[in-house]
């Protein structure tokens, strides 16, 4: 029997490199140090860009649960991002709530929205979810643009930046560190879910729905859980996004936004956390590097996505420990 041990892992190929706890701890320490000193080295402009990249890490990790783990194509992820941002905007501006009270409200609304959209569609063929989420994304964007409460096309502004135990989170550097913490939490939660009963159920359902059902797994419930967890990630990202910018408008929640987040998930390698993080950085940093290309840059991304799908569907990030099984 050829010995090809395969340990499916949310970490992708990393598990073979970082095979001892010591190596792993060193790696984590290095990454943490890099995160702390990066803004001090690169200056304010880079800090803003990095903050944006970290926001995308959060969003992409959320979408990764839906797409990468449960295998569902969600084309309207920006809708949940919008739900989070607008809830915080409206709750703080119109109802005078403090950010930390608005945040759970945002999560609550995202869960409700996720259940309303997910429950009917997840019973159907997976293709339907893709297109219904596309429609849902448009509904939310259009609602934001047409409603008075959401400030119409110009959106909301003057959202106050939050206080935390006497610390006024207000400068770009403050927000950079806040997003660092969020990204770390997003990673930890993703890893823990991946290695749980529910995380395995996502993979079972994704690989073979019938076999999963035969093993007593309620595929609708399990998919709904993935969809709702993704929604919560999106809403939290949106809430902090609103607090960071202080102003939001419907343009931030367009179809292109959903596509960009999806690209982050797929380019790096869906289902693999380092891959998704890499993807988020590519999606945010590449436009900075390709600035001269103007509109061509989206085209380059699109072609890149197509090539990835045709020639390397598992993404850029290597999946050493799982090769052979993937086509």
């Amino acid at each position, binding site marked *: 029997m050829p010995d090809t041990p395969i340990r499916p892992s949310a970490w992708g190929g990393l598990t073979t490199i970082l095979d001892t706890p010591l190596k792993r701890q060193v790696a984590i320490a290095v990454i943490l140090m890099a995160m702390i000193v990066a803004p001090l080295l690169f200056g304010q402009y880079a800090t803003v860009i990095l903050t944006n990249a970290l926001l995308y890490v959060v969003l992409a990790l959320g979408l990764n649960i839906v797409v990468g783990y449960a295998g569902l194509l969600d084309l309207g992820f920006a809708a949940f991002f919008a739900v989070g941002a607008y809830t915080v905007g409206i709750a703080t501006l119109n109802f005078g709530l403090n950010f930390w009270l608005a945040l759970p409200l945002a999560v609550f609304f995202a869960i409700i929205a996720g259940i309303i959209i997910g429950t009917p569609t997840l*019973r159907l063929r*997976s*293709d339907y979810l893709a297109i219904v989420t596309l*429609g*849902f994304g*448009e509904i939310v964007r259009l609602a934001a643009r*047409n409603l008075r409460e959401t400030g119409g096309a110009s959106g909301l502004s003057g959202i106050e930046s939050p206080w935390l135990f006497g610390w006024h989170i207000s400068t770009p550097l403050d927000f950079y560190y806040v997003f660092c913490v969020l990204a770390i939490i997003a990673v930890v939660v993703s890893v823990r879910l991946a290695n749980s009963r529910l995380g395995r159920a996502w993979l079972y359902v994704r690989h073979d729905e019938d076999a999963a059902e035969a093993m007593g797994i309620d595929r609708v419930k399990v998919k709904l859980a993935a969809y709702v967890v993704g929604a919560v990630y999106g809403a939290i990202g949106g809430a902090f996004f609103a607090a960071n910018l202080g102003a939001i408008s419907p343009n931030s929640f367009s179809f292109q936004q959903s596509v960009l987040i999806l690209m982050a998930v797929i380019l790096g390698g869906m289902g693999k956390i380092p891959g998704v993080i890499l993807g988020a950085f590519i999606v945010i940093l590449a436009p900075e590097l390709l600035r001269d290309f103007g509109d061509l840059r989206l085209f380059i991304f699109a072609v890149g996505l197509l090539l990835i*799908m045709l020639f390397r569907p598992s993404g850029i990030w290597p999946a050493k420990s799982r090769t052979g099984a993937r086509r």
Partner: protein
Amino acid sequence: MGFIDIFSQQLVNGIVLGSFYALVALGYTMVFGVVKLLNFAHGDLYMVGGFAGFLILSFLSPFIGPGWFGVAVSMVFAMIAVGILGVVIERVAYAPMLSAPRLSILITALAVSLVLQNGMLTITKGQYVPFGSALGFGGVNLGSLFISYNQMILVGVSIALMAGLEIFVSRTQYGRAMRAVSVDKDMSRLLGINVNRVIAGTFFLGTGLAAAAGTMAGAYYGSLWYFMGFLIGLKAFTAAVIGGIGSIPGAMLGGLILGLLESFGTQLPGVGSEWKDVFSFSVLILVLVFKPTGLLGKPEQERM
């Protein structure tokens, strides 16, 4: 205007809109029927069809004029050109994927859609492009109701195309092969049907119809935009679902119903034109909840 006037005016608008939706929905449904693939790029092929018609018309209009005749000739060429593009896309992007997990195929289709969209964005720099047709403003008055010749021609051409398709699918050998493949691909192969050719033909026809709709839309509304396929793709899908995805008469019916729903829906109190799209997507979600097989679709027991 009285109630009757508003009603009949919206009826005309709904039928015009509905014929666009139906033409695009047909391609969606045909491709889905035969390869069980949701071709996300379908709406963008409609957009490319519009631009192809525009290019051809701008070459030909010195000779055949920018009127309906010129548009019709350009439309035929655009159908052929974009139909071939559809086949190429199927061969290059979808064919290698047909045995891959469904998620991969869906993402590939999305990628194709984005390539077309952003390719056109790059070429047109995101600007609206005037179509360059000159169609005239004549029409007939029925009481206070005005129906333009353009609307009549547009609906007439759509009906002719759909009738042609229906005859092709139900009467010809090729159409029968198409239906056989949509029921059981492996069985069809055993019976000696060249399945790949049938799939290619389906893409050609479906994409061609979308291109026809794109050209007509360009001529009728007067301008083109790289993003014009996005919404209509969604709407056409909605139409296909209303009619029962996979069913050709269903797509026609669904298109008409959605067109009418939209034009009447915007007259409802509280549903202004800015809520039109929200209205149609809500219809989509409601149909999926209460009648996912659509009006003319057949429920199927999935094979284990």
